[in-house]
């Protein structure tokens, strides 16, 4: 682990697929980075970009949004809207020159415990490489 950096990553997981997938990763005793804290929402479509922007500006080193695969949304189409909103957020931050690598949108189904582990580890690895979110220490935010 690099220079004592303990990232703070927040994962918004949809109740039906990704949260179940994360539980399954638990049941399989996979290793998930402790830096990832999960916030359960009913649908990835509930995660509005302002919420994600708030997380980032308040110093989250990474924000993961995970939901059902397209077509599998428990609420029919919430994940499609989630993706649109995520695209908007990403483009906005990119245009402003802010880190978009700190954001990830992934589809993880209820049976993909393994995949959840992979996504979580990959993302945490990515964040370790990026280092701390500079917004953490900005008084002027």
């Amino acid at each position: 682990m690099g220079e004592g950096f303990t990232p703070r990553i927040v994962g918004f997981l949809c109740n039906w697929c990704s949260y179940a997938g994360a539980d399954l990763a638990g049941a399989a005793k996979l290793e998930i980075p402790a830096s990832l804290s999960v916030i359960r929402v009913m649908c990835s479509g509930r995660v509005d970009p302002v919420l994600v922007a708030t997380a980032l500006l308040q110093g989250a080193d990474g924000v993961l949004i995970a939901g059902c695969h397209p077509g599998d949304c428990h609420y029919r189409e919430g994940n499609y809207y989630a993706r649109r909103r995520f695209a908007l957020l990403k483009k906005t931050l990119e245009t402003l020159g802010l880190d978009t690598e700190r954001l990830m949108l992934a589809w993880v189904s209820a049976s993909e415990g393994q995949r959840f582990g992979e996504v979580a580890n990959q993302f945490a690895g990515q964040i370790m490489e990026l280092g701390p979110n500079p917004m953490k220490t900005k008084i002027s935010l």
Partner: protein
Amino acid sequence: MTDKKENAPVLVIGAGIAGIEASLLLANSGRKVYLIEKTSYIGGNVIKFEEVFPNMDCATCMIAPKQQELLADENIELLTLSQVEAVSGAAGDFSVKIKQKAGYIDLVNCIGCSACFDPCPVEVDNEFEEGLTKRKAVYIPCAGALPNVPVIDTENCLRFKGQDCQACQEACAFEAIDFNQQDKELELKVGAIVVATGFSMFDINKTSQYGYKKLGGVYSAMEIERICASNGPTQGQITLQSGEAPKSVAIINCVGREEKGYCSSVCCMAALKLCHFLKNKLPELKITQFYSDLCIPGKAYQQFYQKVKESGVDFIRAEVTGVSESAKELAVKYKTDEGKENTLAADMVILNPALEPGADSAKLAGMLNIPQSREGFFSEKEPDLTPVATAQDGIFIAGCAQGPKDIAETIAEAEATAGRILSRSG
């Protein structure tokens, strides 16, 4: 009808999707439901699939909320490891004897933490995984199986073979392992019975020409379903025994159709689904399908077929006469309608077998006193007019117990049995 009869409990046999759906509807209306299942888990065959046609829905995601709803429903009493022993009485007043095998796990104490698996010294083939992985003698069939309760397999458990092993018991922090449990006999009074015992796969071992279980690289469709499954033996990685990904696959349809004498309705679509899935995972994979007639009824199915075809899958209308090993690959010999013979090389062969009635169908039919069709499925009272009723008043059938069918039809039949049972119009 008496009020008592109208509100009598219902017995549902089989906790696949048909049994689950029927139970949920009946319970929601206020009926008490006994749902009996011979295995230790619910979800039947569907939970073995990674994705289902035609929308490639994730099967677990689809079923899990229903499973959870079922387990939480206070009107439903789930009896796993249970089978019907005897039935007497008539509609509105059946008396059913159930035998519930001991699982040797105290359901109140067990929290499903799986700490008992590791210490178990026994390793046997995992049937749920089509024998592609091993399991212990105390086990759950796969991660995420519901209810999340292990079971001890007395056939393989050392203790039940007379040895003094209590490794699992020692590992359990909750005193949940109870070797003294006994099989139980229950007598249920019910007003109606739903038979939802599902299907089995035609035993490919009955054929010899395809080299099944003899040649590496020859798989049954169900084995491939598990290999595709993200919670399966390879976590969804498509590999040959060598550990490498296949480069070419031949799918052989209608295996056992001639022997069984009927079209199993769903296999063409299931094969197309596998093509879709494999192409997604391995875009370079060369896939060839051998078929005689494409049976893709349903408004959305042809479109699916076209999409698969456009993704680069070859379709050859021919009879496969044999599969043999040549050099590093497999050779699929086939004969077209016109009688031309040819050979195709592939490093993986998938056999897509017919669906047949569950193994215990005859026994159950006898106990319930309902006729079976000549193919061994349970018979409807009048095939046109009462498709989910049987010759026995008060006994209904749903899903593949009646004949091969897809998930939508199965669910519709399950709902129809609920409709018939809840109807007060007689």
